[in-house]
């Protein structure tokens, strides 16, 4: 079924375009009804302009690129939805993200904050709470529960998060510096011969490194390694 008002251009928004200082918002949610409802509620407010709606990652990235929203409202229904957040920040570093969540899993909330969410609003809260959160986050503050805020501050003061719950971080942590270098070059789609030349080592050594990397990261071939490296920021 078509979503007739998804990614409506700003000039068609009900917020007057003369309001140049309106907070530009991108809504990301799987559900059309939720997106439409949020749009209606938000556009009733002065100073808020919904610049687009997206139902999936590619749509969200495309709209973020073209509309440059100030605030991204990202519904968090599945822990994997969080993976979109760093990609959105890469495209619009000036945007600030607020997660809308129906999940009570604290680990997911922590992960959202680590990935850059500056606000977290539960879906069972009133629209006024969301509006407050939008205003605060847009003003450069954060909107988090006190306990979560305390944890984030504690992590910062202790010099970084311990990540015992992230199995990928544990795997990546076992890589040696040379293995990371090999992964970076594999991520550039270089052949073993080229990698060997760049690292001044033998091709056999590159193969040994790759065998070790495949085992540590539980990947089975080169393409899977390239994808793993891309997803986890090891190729740059």
């Amino acid at each position, binding site marked *: *079924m078509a979503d007739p008002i998804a990614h409506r251009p700003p000039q068609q928004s009900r917020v007057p375009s003369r309001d140049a200082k309106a907070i530009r918002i991108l809504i990301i949610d799987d559900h059309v009804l939720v997106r439409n409802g949020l749009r209606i509620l938000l556009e009733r407010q002065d100073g808020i302009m919904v610049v687009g709606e997206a139902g999936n990652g590619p749509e969200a990235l*495309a709209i973020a690129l073209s509309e440059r929203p100030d605030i991204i409202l990202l519904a968090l229904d599945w822990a994997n939805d969080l993976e979109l957040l760093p*990609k959105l920040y890469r495209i619009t570093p000036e945007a600030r993200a607020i997660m809308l969540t129906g999940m009570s899993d604290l680990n997911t909330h922590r992960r959202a904050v680590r990935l850059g969410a500056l606000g977290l609003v539960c879906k069972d809260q009133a629209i006024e709470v969301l509006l407050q959160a939008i205003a605060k986050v847009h003003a450069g503050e954060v909107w988090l529960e006190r306990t979560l805020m305390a944890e984030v501050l504690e992590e910062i003061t202790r010099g970084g998060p311990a990540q015992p719950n992230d199995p990928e971080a544990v795997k990546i942590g076992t890589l040696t510096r040379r293995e990371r270098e090999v992964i970076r070059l594999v991520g550039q789609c270089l052949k073993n011969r080229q990698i060997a030349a760049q690292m001044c080592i033998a091709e056999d050594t590159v193969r040994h490194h790759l065998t070790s990397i495949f085992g540590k990261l539980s*990947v089975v071939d080169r*393409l899977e390694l390239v994808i*793993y490296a*891309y997803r986890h920021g090891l190729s740059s």
Partner: protein
Amino acid sequence: MDAASEPPSTPPDQRVFRRHERIYDPFPVRIRSVDASGEAFECHTVLDNFSASGFYARLQRPVKCGTKLFAIVHLSTSRCEGLAPRVAVRGVVLGVAPRSDVTWGVAVRFTHYRFL
């Protein structure tokens, strides 16, 4: 993700069960194949998702299941595509479904790949 109304290119409840890690970035891709009417075509589009075993893309024309396909995927969403790592893949169309945006969602399984 709009599972109720669209063919599920990225069913959220299944992502965690996938065997291969999957990237949901819109990687540019050039696809060469034969459409349902038997006409050869080549097109540029972006992927919905990409993994080590296959990809999902939207095409402007239908293709038949089982059709062989060749594609070159740019592994970057940067506009400087010339600098992006590229992988050439050969594959087989596993599934085709019309979408509400008048395109055809095509799921492809790789049979071969080669880095360029």
